[in-house]
């Protein structure tokens, strides 16, 4: 049932597949990025081959995020010291094909915990969540030049924009973009924290208000009594035609499935509905991923298991299968 694709070196800490699943980027404790490719995507035969390795950071690479393919083969590497580097694969001036660092978003007082890339109105945007509970949205100015970025907005993950929490200490952050295609319209994203400041934690849906040129929280995915819960992971499901969005939110209380309405009510908020609270992973949830139909959710967590979740014909969510790694 399981087929081995690749063995990786000692010290590898993270991995990430590109949009088509034929390239794998891995990060290592020594701060290097390695890239592996399937040779022939048409027949998917042959195993992955190593194609490039380059040093990105001094420190450990904690996470790798691919940039949408409309901007080439580009990854963002988040290091444990809190900086983000963008690398792109490119041929320049008769040099051979190689991965080059294009931009590093440094860290002075706060560290970058998570980044995601999305396209809105044919512009590439980078959403970065920082350890002080802030989120910054950057915009790429020139589609072929990955060095030119502009800060578009900066705000904290709170519903009430007046309050500010200066001394927040966030352990981790989780961003999930609304997975819409082609980027012809404005995108929205979901943001949550695992921090000591309860107001920052709960997952909020942020949308750009064109009229007032600012980001607004349009929904909060937490019941009143759960608002301060530390959030481990969030995942926005692809919507292939449902009349509502489906979002998974993992907290210490379990895995919650939310429905998010598509049309705002009179005060501009999107209606939310908590459909299920599921328990499975004991402790932290590391990662949640929806399949391309948005019908199956895969999760990993502290118990080391991979779990799959689905709704049955009656709309009841349940755990469908689990995978236990063994040597």
């Amino acid at each position, binding site marked *: 049932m399981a087929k081995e694709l690749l063995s990786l070196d000692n010290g590898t800490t993270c991995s990430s597949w590109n949009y088509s699943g034929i390239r794998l980027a891995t990060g290592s404790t020594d701060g290097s990025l390695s890239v592996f490719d399937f*040779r022939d995507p048409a027949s998917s*035969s042959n*195993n992955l081959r190593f194609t490039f390795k380059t040093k990105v950071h001094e420190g450990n690479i904690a996470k790798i995020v691919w940039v949408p393919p409309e901007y080439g083969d580009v990854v963002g590497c988040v290091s444990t010291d809190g900086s983000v580097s963008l690398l792109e694969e490119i*041929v320049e001036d008769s040099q051979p*094909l190689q991965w080059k660092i294009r931009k590093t978003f440094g860290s002075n007082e706060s560290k970058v915990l998570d980044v995601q890339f999305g396209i809105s109105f044919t512009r590439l945007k980078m959403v970065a969540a920082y350890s002080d509970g802030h989120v910054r949205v950057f915009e790429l100015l020139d589609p072929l030049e990955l060095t030119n970025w502009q800060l578009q907005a900066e705000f904290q993950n709170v519903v009430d924009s007046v309050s500010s929490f200066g001394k927040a200490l966030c352990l981790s952050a989780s961003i999930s973009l609304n997975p819409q295609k082609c980027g012809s319209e404005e995108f929205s994203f979901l943001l949550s924290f695992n921090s000591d400041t309860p107001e920052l934690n709960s997952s909020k849906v942020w949308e750009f208000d064109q009229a007032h040129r600012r980001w607004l929280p349009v929904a909060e995915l937490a019941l009143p009594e759960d608002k301060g819960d530390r959030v481990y992971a969030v995942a926005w499901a692809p919507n292939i035609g449902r009349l509502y969005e489906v979002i998974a939110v993992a907290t210490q209380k379990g895995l919650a499935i939310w429905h998010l309405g598509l049309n705002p009510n009179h005060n501009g908020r999107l209606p939310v509905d908590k459909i299920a609270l599921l328990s499975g992973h004991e402790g932290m949830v590391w990662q949640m991923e929806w399949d391309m139909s948005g019908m199956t959710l895969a999760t990993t967590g502290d118990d080391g298991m991979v779990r799959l979740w689905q709704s049955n014909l009656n709309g009841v969510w349940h755990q469908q299968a689990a995978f236990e790694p063994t040597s």
Partner: protein
Amino acid sequence: MAVTAISETSQIHRFPQYKYIHAVRWLPVLSAFNRFAVLASSDSDSDVSSIEIHSFKPNPISFDLHSSWASPSPISSLKASQFLQKSVIAASTSSGSLHFLFADSSDGMLESEVSVPENELHSVGKSCIDLIDGGVECVTVGDDGKVNLVTVGDSNLNYRRLFDSDGLVSYTAVKWASPVEFATGGYGFGLQWWDQRKPGDPVSQFKGNWDTKLTSGIVHSIDIHPSRKHTCLAGGSLGTVLAWDLRWQQQPIILSGAGAGNGAGNTAVQSISESEVWEIQYDRCIKSNTSSTRILPAMICSEDGILGVIEQGEEPIELLAEPCAINSFDIDRHNPLDVICSLEWESVAILTRQ
């Protein structure tokens, strides 16, 4: 086990292979009794790519694996020819290597192999090759804009770069016209004519600005008839088949496709296909009695599953209409009534025309 169907014009045998077939060729052989076909295959279950020689027997019908050679990666271009007493198979792989296989012309057994390793000829995987008729000279072109000539010598393999466009122009098809001339094709229905006696740039370029209404596409295959070396026949995107006469450079004759019926000398014809024409070959079987000004009939195979013959000013003839793409085909030289083609759905079909 074959599935046989008989239509009015031909007998069709289908042979499921249970692996993807990238390309097929008839193997030129000396013996009149043995028929061999070369298949470039990839088994997606075992991750093994290979070049296989199958023997074809019409009565009782059989298409059995005869001998095979494991390729380091999937084949992207396959050609076969005859040289002295040997059958020569040339194949380029998706990882960029080029291989020559030699088979005994009478029994079809693979005997030896020589190769050019990866990254020597092309920096990207996808390359296209053509093997000269009755020889071991092979021209290779690629997306990277490199044009190479590879020759098998007595004891070694020689290769040299004829041209490098530094990626400004990509080549997607190539065909020998004579021992010193060849034609290449690329994006935007671009065609180039090369003459080794005049090294460097192409000696002639097909001008693309003849019909601004034509939607652009990519040339996938070229054929040049030995008796009419001045005409370059190309097949590509959107069902386009065009003939470029070197003597009338600005006026291509569109035989099929979106632009058919427009332009000088083109009579309104129905397009045989609307999608990619993957391969084109002059149909040596149909004897055209028309004047030498007309383009000789040609066979094509396409993404939308058509194997057919087109002739200037005539309605196209459909030989096969499959629910899946036909990746490649080959007309048997010695017996041009027989056509072999590879179907996308992991099978091979052999047509015997009546």
